[in-house]
């Protein structure tokens, strides 16, 4: 069985948001929807340093999207079964046809901001579809989030954000395979996770 996961090297990540933007364009996201973005650890705002000037200033970057958890809170709470975890590879997905837009999953998910409700009348920056032709249609009043680029995985490719990162900070692969790139990277580097104590079993790791 495959279990997909992702690792982000915080010694390389510069919070440039290329992953966020490439994902946004490639999936032809409505203006109101964002699957992934870089955050700052330090200050409250993006690119705001914390600590004390001059020797104890801190500003670290990490990216945040769906963690494709082992025990997803979204799957547990979903009243229609739209929120699902794929057995064959662990991807957590939302079946747009079954989603009723109740936003329970948004409330249940500990990772704020990774899921967004597509509004009743979504808007787009341009009057034609952008990005990957295989990108899914966006159904109004449904919840969307990172899918680990399921359409690309189907083609034997990696998620776009993995390939695209100019700092080569992102690794993706089968966490259940000790020979995979990601397993090796996790074995070699100290790492941590976000909100691990919430108990959902996230599958995104941050290399320290």
């Amino acid at each position, binding site marked *: 069985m495959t279990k997909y996961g992702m690792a982000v090297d915080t*010694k390389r990540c510069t919070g440039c948001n290329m992953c966020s933007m490439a994902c946004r364009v490639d999936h032809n996201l409505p203006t109101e929807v964002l699957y992934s973005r870089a955050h700052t650890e330090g200050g409250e705002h993006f*690119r705001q340093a914390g600590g004390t000037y001059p020797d104890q200033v801190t500003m670290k970057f990490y990216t945040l999207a769906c963690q494709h958890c082992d025990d997803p809170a979204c799957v547990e709470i979903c009243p229609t079964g739209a929120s699902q975890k794929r057995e064959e590879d662990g991807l957590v997905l939302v079946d747009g046809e079954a989603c009723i837009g109740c936003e329970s999953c948004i409330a249940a998910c500990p990772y704020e901001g990774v899921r967004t409700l597509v509004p009743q009348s979504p808007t787009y920056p341009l009057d034609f579809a952008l990005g990957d032709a295989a990108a899914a249609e966006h159904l109004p009043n449904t919840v969307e989030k990172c899918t680990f680029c399921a359409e690309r995985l189907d083609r034997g490719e990696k998620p776009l954000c993995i390939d695209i990162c100019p700092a080569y900070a992102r690794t993706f692969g089968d966490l259940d395979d000790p020979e995979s790139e990601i397993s090796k990277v996790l074995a070699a580097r100290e790492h941590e996770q976000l909100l691990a104590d919430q108990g959902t079993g996230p599958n995104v790791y941050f290399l320290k």
Partner: protein
Amino acid sequence: METPSTQLTRRSFLTTTALAAGALAASGMAGCSSVDTSGDAANDLASTAGQEETYIGTCHGNCGGRCALKATVREGKIVSTLPMEFPNENKGLRVGCVKGVSNPLRIYGPSRLMYPMKRAGERGSGEWERITWDEAIELFANQLKASMETYGGASNMWQGGAGNMNGILNGTPTGIINSAMMPDGTIAPLPSFNAGFANSRLIQKTGGTVLSVGHDMAGIVFCFVHLSSPQSAVEDLANAKTIVAWGANPAEASFCRAAWNAICTGRENGAKLIAIDPLLSTTAAHADEWVPVRTGTDAALMCAMVHYIVDNDLANWDYVKNKSVAPFLIDEAGAYLRLSSLGQAEAGTDADVPVVWDEDAQAFVAHATATNPAIRGTFDANGVAVRTVFDAALENIAPFTVEFAANECGIPAAQIENLARTVATEGPTSFYINYGLEHTYESWRIYFLIGLLASLTGSVGIPGGSYVGSINLGHESATMFKQPTTFNEDDFTLEDAVPGGHFTGDWIAQIAETGQWAGQDFHMGTLVNMCANPLDNFSGSSALLKAYDKIDYIVTIDTIMTTTAHYSDLVLPCCMPWETYEYIEGGIFEQKAIDPVGDARSDFDIIKAVAEKMGYDDLIVGEGTDYLRRYLDTPENIEAGVGFDALSENGVVLGDYSCDAHVTPEYNPFGRTQFYLEYLMPRDNWGQMFGLQDRLPYYKPSIEAYADNPDRAKYPLYGMSSHDIYHGQTLWSHHPWLDDFRKLDGQPFCRIHTEAAAERGIKTSDKVRVFNDHGSVVLNALVTEGIRKDSVWVPHGFTWDEFEEGYAQSLTRWCPDDVTSNNNFNDWICEVEKM
């Protein structure tokens, strides 16, 4: 958590909750444009899947880089612009950025200029009248002609810039050394670099004036011309043990975007990263040490480090003696003692090399053959007293001690000493330098100090040792793509060229005051802004705007209504990448993917039409691609597989790339690292001469941003801006998806330290005004610990209309220097008040 017992259907849910159809408001994210965003067409992919074409190009992001991007076209629209894939292992050279992948929003953005317009009200009123291209070309041509006939060809001024990546067809001519003094005392304009085919020819035909750029010129002229600094491959950064990012932010802003990867690899191999910057940049946030130097005082810091290394005997004396100009001997006027002075060679020949005092031979010996050159001492050469350059350099910087620098730079003495010790003893050291340290008046002086520091630490031409980072790092394209090596540039030079003018465009502010240039009367008839946006991107914007009052007619060719376009008389829409063909230095042939949006035309086509209207039917004949074919189709290029056909069909031709971390030794005639010059050639010559003190390492405080400036009573804070990943000059303005990252609560923001903010009652997200005698801007405040307490940072890359009031560039002082005519973006002081 319980599983809901009832199975809600969509319909039943909607009627039982407040979320009735249509009741949902759009969330507060980036606003809608005026483009149809109903979603119907934007959400329909199924019908067009499978009918896609791809085209290679670069995004003209004006970040200095040139990433090869692949545009995907569906139904005649560019839907995607992702970095090109490479089949071979490229070890981190494939880059691209957040801007590049969002090109479709820029190309089709609602701010795009769609048709020619002429001013309908006062300049800057924002009142425009749409006109046809025929009318526009006629206005343009008639203006050039009238000004030529009344005031002479030089009255037509062509301001160049980097907006089109200095492309062969659509770029602009520009120069590094723009004029020279002839033996008879007259000032002669010098030719420009060959870019911007059509306008180069028209300028020469009409005897126009080329206005070269001033930005980054202190660095460019000193590194590329005066000191001939050697260029390392970007991969070599991975070999360093100490990397000093100085006035540089490689994590975000580098001509060679792959530098960050190389630095990360170096750090993974144990290298230490030090960032010297008034702002906690992304690089500084990652660095092992942040040295928050005060803007414009970097040279003082270097002087202090030099003293510490010398006084504590930490120098690589072998390098200093044998591979730098330290042992060269100069007389009172600063001329090198050469073999001819000793009667051992004919003056002016290649054989007449500088000599050194050889301690072994106890005689003056040609420097290349000396075995033990003296680097200290004064000697008698046939009655002429000469001393070593090293002595002269140390004497010149004697006052700028560690104690002086601690006070001037605002850095503790212990930190300065530790920094000096580190670079000297924990090498190989790469001084990764970018233009951030040359943005104050006369900051060109720092390049002598960089050369001296490099010599003292032996950071030259060895794996991991280099000293002119970003400016001289190879573009990633240069090592991955096969490069054409020869070009047919005949068409760039007119046989019947009429002599015209050539100087740095920033001097129009002086001409506006004096009516003269280089001692001659000069009438500013026409200003054509091509690939340039002076009012938003040059420094001294307010002074330039004032100078516009003295220019009869202003034409701006651009893609959006920049601040410069806003104050123009005629605005012409030009192409964005993928809308026309182009060849960019670096082996990238930009393929045309779509027709230009609206009624935009390529710069080449615009100027060709103007030339024809002026009656020069034979000046520019045929299409741009005809010229590109002649330019590229040399026998060498064709044989190497990088002629016009190969490049135009493929965009780029991949080379046999292997991780080449090559290092380059000094290649100047002496083969030695230079930190002294016998002659200092100004970029714009009006007869100025430079004394010895100006040709040696030295430190001079900024012209406005200096500590004892009495104006600091009203403007106590030092101002600065910098480039980050979310802007590329103003080429990415008016872009809502980038705004999501670079605005705070929907507004541009400034960065101010917690204490300075508290003193002024300012909290994050407050609206503030930053102001000084030059201008002002209203924006939001981001209060942070990541900046010096005495400094404030404002953004660079927004146009005037993106601010609620004023604009950031108006704060900058007009102060080009008389050596490099540099743009000094960070030489200003200001106050900040809560609104």
